[in-house]
């Protein structure tokens, strides 16, 4: 797999460290009442077959956090944006 890093250009997959699903939202509260949200955030995953957006750290390159959109069945990579841009776009939609 080749990942198009917005800073470094197209780089091989071994330069990246994957964190997983980018669609989960970290709860902002430590209130015990929010434990259900924490449970969802830490454990539950949609785990889709097909199009999937995931956090990737360019640990062997510019060290930026990215969100890579990829197909989990074919390994086709659709694109990559910085995690900041992804979060802003997500915030704009919400």
């Amino acid at each position, binding site marked *: 797999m080749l990942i198009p890093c917005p800073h470094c250009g197209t780089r091989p*997959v071994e330069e990246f460290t994957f964190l997983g699903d980018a669609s989960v939202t970290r709860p902002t509260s430590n209130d015990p009442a929010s434990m259900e949200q924490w449970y969802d955030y*830490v454990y539950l995953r949609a785990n889709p*077959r097909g199009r*999937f957006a995931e956090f990737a750290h360019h640990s062997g390159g510019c060290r930026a956090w990215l969100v890579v959109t990829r197909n*989990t069945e074919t390994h086709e990579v659709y694109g990559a944006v910085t995690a900041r841009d992804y979060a802003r776009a997500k915030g704009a939609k919400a």
Partner: protein
Amino acid sequence: MRYNVFSLLRNSLSGHKNWQPAWREPEPKTEYDVVIVGGGGHGLATAYYLAKEHGLTNVAVLEKGWLGSGNIGRNTTIIRSNYMLPGNNPFYEWSMKLWENLEQDFNFNAMVSQRGVLNLCHTDAQRDAFARRGNAMRIDGVDAELLDREAVREMYPFFDYDNARFPIKGGLLQRRGGTVRHDAVAWGYARGADSRGVDIIQHCEVKGIRIENGKVLGVDTNKGFIRCKKLGLATAGNSSETAAMAGMKLPIESHVLQAFVSEGLKPYIDGVVTFGAGHFYVSQSDKGGLVFGGDIDSYNSYARRGNLPMVEHVVEAGVAMIPSLARVRVLRSWGGIMDMSMDGSPIIDKTHIQGLYLNAGWCYGGFKATPASGWCFAHTIAKDEPHKLNAA
């Protein structure tokens, strides 16, 4: 037909023309007491123990591909029970005991070979951790021997003991661990279940799960609707998708794990050995190929193939441990899809839906667990409560 020396003689005299198929190929009935989704090792073992231990024979196993086409045929065939924590050890040791009697039990040669599993350690701290693990195993009645460097050298003189970065300091040996012919496990369980009346239906893909008032009604398949009183899901690798049909979201991600086999060599490594400074484990098959594997590819995947960087990484770890591997050629590699659970623990349990049971989340350790997983899942389904070996 029972396999024994007389049936072998009789059939060899008649030119091997009269062997019967090991299992039938039935069309699905309209209703079953229990339907198991997934005709792999765990699903077939579940059906076998449902019939054998609980007398439930109105059972169907639905498999979307052919029998044993998933991870039961995509692993590195290692069995062991060298776990440390109280919740793990009794379960995996029960699995080991079932392995030890499996062939007599289901009258099929699964080539269970207790050739020993040796975990190497490379630092003093790791040796201390292995001593602790070995003691924990022995408390649970599992065999464990802590070997020093010279004892390991006696077994495997060709390892790199003086590797500058990962010198071998010793190892933890479980002599009862070993390997099993993985396909034969699926075939043996299938034959045993089938002969007790279980219908094994291949190329039958489940498209949906019907639930009414919190109770399972049956499954929609490409061969029509099949009604059932109880439904067990044993579809590791695809658990998130099957569970989603029942409206459940699981704590699981699917990842690809690669495995490899080398060209055939003369007898070289007579046990199973694991590298302690990275992910690498190797044994030699009876055909002579070295069967080895390493770490998962570390990104979500449903593709049954991995990427080349992990191939390189695994082979590097292997060569660090056994320099003479450098000249061995890799014959083929393949990938299997692992149910990676978020806390590393498997799931064998009831669900909030009446009559729906789940067997999932085996991470990269499902093969060795096959007999105990089937045994515990069968108990959970038959009694509608988990056995103490699989209760959370």
